[in-house]
């Protein structure tokens, strides 16, 4: 009985950890890259002030395009 409970808890814990990992990866991947005429590039990762302004606009564009 105890073994089966432990096994179920282990599976549930593993699923939660996996889901959290996947979600974190997906969130981490969100970024904005700006390329300038002089060849320089600026990468703004999710959470930075610049990215916080650009990411919602990009989501809005994607929603517009993907809407049926």
């Amino acid at each position, binding site marked *: 009985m105890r073994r089966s409970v432990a096994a179920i808890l282990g599976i549930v814990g593993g699923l939660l950890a996996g889901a959290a990992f996947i979600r974190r990866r997906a969130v981490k991947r969100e970024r904005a890259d700006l390329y300038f005429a002089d060849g320089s590039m600026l990468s703004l990762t999710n959470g930075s002030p610049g990215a916080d302004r650009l990411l919602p*606009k990009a989501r809005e564009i994607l929603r517009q395009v993907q809407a049926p």
Partner: protein
Amino acid sequence: MIVDAQKALADLTEISSQIQAAVVFDSKGKVVGSTLAEPSRADALAKSAAELLATAEQIEAARSPLTQVEVATAEGSVFVVRDEQATIAATTGSNATVGLVFYDLKSALRSLKPKPAGRKPATRKTTAAAKKTTPKKAPARKRTPRKKPDAP
């Protein structure tokens, strides 16, 4: 340019399977080509892309002009590339090959540029006097009997 833009976008979507939708617009925001069927949606996409570009410019206003932007979200990515004449905006799914998409967008934008004006072939000036005159006939050639070289 509208026909060129539509053709460039048709070529773009044929070459790049990653691109879901794309729109080309000029410096005033006027849409010159789009892969979207409805013009209102193309206008909205162009407007939003222009806003995105303007926001990106505000972030780093001190730097040299902004030429390209890529914003990657969990739902997909938005690419904007611009030059002196036009801007192209495109959307892709997530995990797009960034370099390849930028290359295809720049190629599409380059194909829109008008070809450099070469030298026009010289044309004859036609004046009223010249029009009136009838072309001179070539003088009739006298027919001379051919002599055979071995003739006596």
